[in-house]
C-alpha cells in the first residue's frame, strides 16, 4: 500500500487527465461522430433497402394477383363471347333452316298446285279429245255400217232386238 501511494504521481495524473479528456473531444469530433453517423446511415440504408425490397415483393404479388384476376376476367369474357357466338351461330343456322323449310314447303305446295292444275287441264283436254275421238270413231263406225245395206238391216235388227228386250 505504501508502495502504491509512493508510486502515485500527480504529474502523471495531470497528464492522464489532460490527454484522455483531449482525446475524448478530438476523437469524438474527428472519429466517433462521423463513424457512428455513417454506421447509422448505412444501417438505415440497409433497413430502407430491405423495406423497399419487401414492398416491391408485396407490390409484385399484388400485381401478379391483379394480372391473374385480369387474365381470369379476360378468359371469362372470351368464354362468354365464344358461347354467344356459338349460340348465335346455332340461332342463325336454325333460322336459316326454318326459312329454307318454309320456302321449300311454299315452293312444293305451289308446284303441287301447279301440277294439280296442269293435271286437271290435261285430264279435261284428254276428256275432250277422247270425246272428240269417240265421236269421230263412232261417226266412222256408223259411216262404215251404213254404207252396206245388209249391215244396216242387221244393225237395225240388233237394235230392234235390244229394244224389244227392253
Amino acid at each position, binding site marked *: 500500500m505504501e508502495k*502504491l501511494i*509512493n*508510486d*502515485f*504521481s*500527480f*504529474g*502523471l*495524473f*495531470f*497528464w*492522464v*487527465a489532460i*490527454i*484522455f*479528456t*483531449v*482525446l*475524448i*473531444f*478530438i*476523437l*469524438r469530433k*474527428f*472519429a*466517433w*461522430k*462521423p*463513424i*457512428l453517423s*455513417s*454506421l447509422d*446511415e*448505412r444501417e438505415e*440504408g440497409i433497413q430502407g433497402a430491405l423495406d423497399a425490397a419487401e414492398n416491391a415483393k408485396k407490390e409484385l404479388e399484388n400485381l401478379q394477383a391483379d394480372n391473374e384476376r385480369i387474365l381470369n376476367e379476360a378468359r371469362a369474357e372470351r368464354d362468354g363471347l365464344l358461347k354467344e357466338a356459338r349460340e348465335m351461330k346455332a340461332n342463325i343456322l336454325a333460322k336459316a333452316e326454318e326459312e329454307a323449310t318454309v320456302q321449300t314447303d311454299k315452293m312444293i305446295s305451289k308446284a303441287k298446285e301447279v301440277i294439280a292444275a296442269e293435271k286437271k287441264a290435261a285430264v279435261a283436254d284428254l276428256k275432250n279429245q277422247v270425246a272428240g275421238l269417240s265421236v269421230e270413231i263412232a261417226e266412222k263406225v256408223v259411216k262404215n255400217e251404213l254404207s252396206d245395206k245388209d249391215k244396216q238391216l242387221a244393225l237395225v235388227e240388233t237394235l230392234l232386238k235390244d229394244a224389244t228386250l227392253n
Partner: protein
Amino acid sequence: MGAQSLSKIFATLVVSFFSLTLFAGTEAPENPIQHHDHKDDHHGDPHAHAATPSSNLHAKDAHANHGGAVDTKEEVDAYIQHHLADSHDVVLWSDGEKGTHVGFPLPVILWDGGLKVGMSSQFHHGESVATIGGNHYKLFHGKVYKTDAKGTLSYDEHHHPTNEKPFDLSITKNVFAMLVTGLLLLLGFGSLAKGYKNGPIPKGIGRFLEPLVLYVRDEIAKPNIGERKYRKYMGFLLTIFFFIWLLNLLGLTPFGFNVTGNITFTACLALITFLIVQFSGNKDYWKHIFWMPGVPVPMKIILAPIELIGLVTKPFSLMVRLFANITAGHSVVMGIIAVIYLMKDSLGLVGGISVSMILGIFINLIELLVAFLQAYIFTMLASLFIGMAVEEHDHH
C-alpha cells in the same frame, strides 16, 4: 438472463481470440528479443547510483546491481519493480558492463517556482546531477528531487529522501506512450471516419476497427445504458475502450511500456468515470442512494451509508482491477523470462531458454486476451454504472 450473459461472454471470447490470432503472429517471435532487452536493460537502472550505504532494501538491491548481471532473485525482483514503474526516459536496452544505454531521452518539465524545462538525458539515468533552469535536480527511484550542486540526498528512517520535490510534469515514458497511443487512435479511427466518404464499406485498417466499434456500441453501450441514452456516452466509452486496449497491447511489445498497470493511470480513468456517472445521475439514482424507495424507514437509514460506500467502491474496483491485472501480467511474463537466469544451474542454458520461451509465449498469448478483456471489462462496468445512473424507474 443466463443465456444472455453466456452469449455475451462467448462473443467476448470470439473477439478476443480474433485479436489474439491477429497479433500473435507479430508478438510471439519478439519474445526472445524482449528477454535480452530486459536482461541488459537492467544495468541502466537508476537505482544503481544510490551510493549512500543504507540498510534499506532498495538501496541494497541497487548496490548489488551495480555493474553486474541480473542473476539473483533480489536483482530480478528489483528489475521487475523498475520495469513496472514509470521512468523519465525510454531505454530500449543497455549494456551494463560498459554502462551504455540505447534509447531516447524525454522532456523534463518541472514546476519549481516557475516552469523549468530540460531533457532527461541531463540526469544520465540518475547517475549525475542535472542543472535545469538554474536549479539542481537529481533522479532517485524514478522521482526528481531538488538538490545542491553536488547532488546530496538526505534520507529519513525509511530511506526516503527528505529533499524537496518539485511538481513533476515531465513527459515520462508513460505520458509518451499515451501520446503515441492517442496519435495511433487518431490515425486509425480518423482514417476509418474518412473512409466512409468513399463508400459505405470501410477499407484497410477500418475493416478491422469497424466491427470493434460496432461491438462496443451493440454489446457494451446499448444493452447497459439503453437504446435511448447510449449515444451521449459513446465518445467516452469508445475512447476509453480503445485507449486501454491499445495501451495494454503496447505494454506487450518489447518497448516495455506499462501504462495501464500504473495505479495513477487507472485512478485517473476511474475518477473520470466516477465523475461522469455522478453527473449523469438522475433523481431516481440519488433517491436510491439516500432514501431507498420501497423499504421500511429503519432500512432506509441503514441502506444509505451502504449505498454511499458503494458509490466509492465502484470506481475503486475499476481502478484496482485494471491495475492489478496488467501489473500481474507484466510481473509473470518477466518472472518467466528470469527463469533463464535463475534456473541456469538446474535446467542448463538450453533447458532454461526453452522452458522460458514456451511459458513466455503461452503467458504472452494469455496477456493478449487479458489486454482485450480488461479493456472490455472497464468499458462494460463504466457503461453499467452509467446505465444505473440514468435508468428510468417506471414502476415507482
